């Protein structure tokens, strides 16, 4: 089990982080490094695309929350693209739907950032 992370530049000063695979206690450090690297380079507006993510646990949620906290310190934000009902359910029951912008498509997620 692994996770693939691909970072793309988008319009404005936004970046899109495409993820595929499973985000768990073993793979989440890779995601943390990718997000941390973007923030260190001054990218504070992120869309994280979870459409190809099959599984996420609390450590993965923690990485996303940590990233959001860091970009907010610089006036930025993180929007998520999520269509998997099981993953949406996790954001619902943890109340994280109130913290993240969650969208069905990348265009809408980017539009809400800029």
């Amino acid at each position: 089990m692994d996770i693939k992370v691909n970072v793309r530049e988008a319009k404005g000063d936004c970046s899109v982080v495409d993820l595929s695979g499973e985000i768990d206690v073993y793979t989440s450090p890779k995601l943390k490094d990718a997000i941390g690297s973007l923030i260190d380079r001054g990218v504070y507006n992120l869309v994280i695309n979870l459409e190809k993510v099959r599984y996420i646990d609390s450590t993965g949620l923690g990485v996303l929350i940590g990233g959001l906290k860091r970009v907010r310190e610089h006036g930025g934000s993180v929007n998520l693209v999520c269509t998997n009902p099981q993953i949406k359910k996790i954001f619902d029951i943890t109340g994280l739907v109130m913290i993240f912008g969650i969208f069905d498509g990348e265009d809408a997620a980017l539009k809400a950032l800029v």
Partner: protein
Amino acid sequence: MNAQAQREATPDVVELRIPAKAEWVSIARLAVSAVASRLQFSIEEIEDVKLAVAEALVHAIARGGDRVDLACESVPEGLRIRVRNFGGPVQPEAVNVVTADEGSMGNLGIFLIRALMDSVDYDARSDGNTDLVMFKHLPS
């Protein structure tokens, strides 16, 4: 009681022992998914059980020790899962968290277990370690 009746009265138990390392959690997730599937849980319920067990394993690994034992017990009402850690006792207040706390991922894991399973209890053992016992009812 004849031999067949005795077999039917005894719960089926599937056990797994993994090293207390993050890279083995996915193996346990797969095993628990297979057990839950065998018991005719729905796909959504299987996902619930899988995540709850993974969170319990993460919690157990974080406590230390060299291994974590997992036991899945099939009973007529559903599936009972016991996660045994060998890293010392768990503070009882750790299981009484009822709201997601953005500042604490450990608490978020316990919150998820409580939200996804029908019951969650801690069973303190005489050796000072603790079992986390979860139950998921089969739909009636």
